[in-house]
């Protein structure tokens, strides 16, 4: 077998490196761990930016017409720019860089027993392009006319013509930023997929790969397969904006609905692109903290792939009433309702992992469990929207907003906290303060529900989306409904107030936290079988693999864990 021969001739993993200057170490590194941290910190910073936008627009909704502390008066135009960029930032500049680029970069080489990604310089370039995309998005706020305010979905003709959107430069900068982000992730995907496919430790067969790695790889493939048409669409929209073509202009023979198809053909798989990595982290965490094998590994894998494939056939459920042929709506309603099947199976299998376990409620475990409990709400509320007949009422209401926050928040926020609290000791060689993390967990989780449960009710009561002031709508301007909007906003304030606890804990513990050993959680996967933090080259001796990743509480062993690289 190729693998064992390669091993016999591989030199030691810890290659000879000259000491690096400060610039090369922090800004020009090709080390996957440093690049991962760059993505993580950038993503966290953008998360603060996205959260600030939410703060401002929710304050406007709770106290319409009053100046917002830390912002000022919110006009209709301001409001639209805030919600547009909140969505875009959270998906493209927080969820994707943290879940896929940061954790993917950090974990993949370690978990497969390699010394780095296979294309380190391409990896560095991917981050740099990503950083430029974030800067361009930021620039869009400071140009004449202001930032783009046509929603993250950017439907033309509104997004195509300045005479309609009244922001002459913002939309193009926004679009270029998004397009560059896509390029960064296409390039990043090359590394994730090729490294995971080819650079595995000798002995690591397909079903020995940890679920976190599989999920990031499947997500990368899905991203690549879905983003192409939107890249083409973005070029077309950019031409419409900048040089006056009419791809999406009905007066020039174009079709605005074409954009919607191109967008959602990507947009729907995209939500699974971010979901899968989060589910991968949850798999790693619940196995370690219930000391139990992942239930039905192959089923998890096949349902993930199945969900991924099916996700390419549901996109027009975002367009039921958008003017598509109504008979098409029935087709997409069928596929959308059916996709609940593999997802339900995935959820049941995860829950089954807990059966017979010995569960410790550590902070990472709390986050992983919160993911499952909260994501279930998001999943079931999706059915109301996937059933075409019901979607007529719920489309473009706050019901949709609540649904996708009950999926996105677990994915992007809970998933991130789960990953960070679990892998922090490995990344920094120190522990975070557990009490502070627990306080942060409880406040965040309870407050999150306080924000979005009212939004389900508001949506069912008729609150439509992207409206900066409901006082123009008598059916919606009732004291009861306004009270719910205020409650949701106050819950958001509580949520935001708890986040500094985490941030301070994160940065303080990086330097002053209690020292952590190589494997503080007694886990099996390879990243825990090297020092914390791993040196350049990761392993003194690159490991061989002898078993799967989830051999916990094996009856043949005294220890309740069995690292993948232990010969016996």
């Amino acid at each position, binding site marked *: 077998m190729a693998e064992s021969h390669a091993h016999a001739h591989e030199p030691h993993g810890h290659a000879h*490196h000259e000491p690096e200057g400060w610039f090369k170490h922090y800004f020009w590194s090709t080390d996957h761990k440093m690049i991962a941290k760059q993505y993580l910190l950038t993503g966290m910073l953008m998360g603060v930016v996205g959260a600030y936008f939410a703060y401002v627009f929710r304050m406007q909704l709770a106290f319409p017409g009053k100046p917002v502390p830390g912002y000022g008066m919110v006009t209709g135009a301001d409001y639209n720019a805030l919600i547009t960029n909140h969505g875009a930032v959270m998906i493209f500049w927080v969820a994707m860089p943290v879940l896929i680029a940061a954790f993917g970069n950090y974990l993949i080489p370690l978990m497969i027993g*390699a010394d780095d990604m296979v*294309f380190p310089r391409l990896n560095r370039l991917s981050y740099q392009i990503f950083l430029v995309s974030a800067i361009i998005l930021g620039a869009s706020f400071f140009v004449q006319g202001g930032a783009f305010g046509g929603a993250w979905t950017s439907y033309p003709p509104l997004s195509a013509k300045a005479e309609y959107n009244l922001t002459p430069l913002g939309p193009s900068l926004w679009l270029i930023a998004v397009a560059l982000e896509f390029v960064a992730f296409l390039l990043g995907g090359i590394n994730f997929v090729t490294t995971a496919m080819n650079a595995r430790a000798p002995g690591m067969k397909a079903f020995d790969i940890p679920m976190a790695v599989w999920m990031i790889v499947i997500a990368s493939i899905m991203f690549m397969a879905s983003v*192409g048409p939107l890249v*083409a669409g973005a*070029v077309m929209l950019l*031409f419409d904006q900048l040089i006056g073509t009419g*791809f999406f202009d009905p007066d020039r023979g*174009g079709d605005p609905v074409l954009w919607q198809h191109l967008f959602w053909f990507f947009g729907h798989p995209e939500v699974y692109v971010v979901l899968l990595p989060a589910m991968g982290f949850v798999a790693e965490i619940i196995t370690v903290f219930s000391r139990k094998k992942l239930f039905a590994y192959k089923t998890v894998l096949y349902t993930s792939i199945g969900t991924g494939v099916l996700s390419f056939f549901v996109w027009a459920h975002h367009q039921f009433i958008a003017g598509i042929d109504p008979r098409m709506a029935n087709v997409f309603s069928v596929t959308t309702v059916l996709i609940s099947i593999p997802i339900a199976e995935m959820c049941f299998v995860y829950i089954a992992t807990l059966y017979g376990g010995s569960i410790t409620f550590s902070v990472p475990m709390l986050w992983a469990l919160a993911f499952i409990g909260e994501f279930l709400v998001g999943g079931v509320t999706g059915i109301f929207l996937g059933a075409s007949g019901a979607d007529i009422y719920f489309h473009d209401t706050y019901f949709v907003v609540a649904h996708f926050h009950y999926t996105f928040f677990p994915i992007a926020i809970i998933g991130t906290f789960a990953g960070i609290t679990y892998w922090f000791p490995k990344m920094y060689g120190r522990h975070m303060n557990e009490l502070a993390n627990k306080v942060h967990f409880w406040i965040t989780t309870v407050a999150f529900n306080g924000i979005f449960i009212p939004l389900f009710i508001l949506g069912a009561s008729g609150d439509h989306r992207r409206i900066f002031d409901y006082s123009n709508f008598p059916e919606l301007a009732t004291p009861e409904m306004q009270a719910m909007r205020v409650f949701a906003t106050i819950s958001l304030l509580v949520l935001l107030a708890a986040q500094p606890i985490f941030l301070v804990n994160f940065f303080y513990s990086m330097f002053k936290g209690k020292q952590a050993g190589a494997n503080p959680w007694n886990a099996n996967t390879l990243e825990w079988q090297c020092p914390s933090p791993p040196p350049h080259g990761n392993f003194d001796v690159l490991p061989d693999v002898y078993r799967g990743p989830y051999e916990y509480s094996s009856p043949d062993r005294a220890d309740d864990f069995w690292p993948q690289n232990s010969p016996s």
Partner: protein
Amino acid sequence: MVKPIATTRSATGVPTGRLAVWWVIASEIVIFGGLLASYVMHRLGHPEWATYAAHTNPWAGGLNTLVLLTSSLTAVLAHNAAERGNGKRAANLLMLTCVGALTFLVVKSFEWYHEISEGFTITANGFWSFYYCAAGLHGIHVIAGAIIMLFVAADARKNKELQRVELIGIYWHFVDLVWIFLFPLLYIAK
């Protein structure tokens, strides 16, 4: 930079560089596929576009098809030479491929110059918008491919990184293949 050991492994049996190139090509197929699918959908809904398409120059298009096919041939011959360790010959054949790329671009420049001076600009109507967008995107890939090819040829001439000759060849065949779709769709379809 010292290459990591990871780069030399091959759990799938396929060399890492080749895997990466196939990945790039897969992404590009989806991008061009999306653009061309949009074009085809529009074209089906706009029968009058056939009258606009009649103003394209199928002779120039046909010539360019021949040029690209020939350049793919030289790329294959370059790969053969590289396989046999003959870096100098591989480099020369890659340079010939670049000449093909240049010829393609020159012919296209004449084409576009003529069409633009007749008033068929990118904003003239939907057909011409797609025409310039698709052919332009393809042209950018021709230019990018030719530039990379120059770097690969420079290394190959010194018998370095000979495996990259095959890789840039695979990419070049893809660029050729896209043109094979573009040509009938833009020039010939009625």
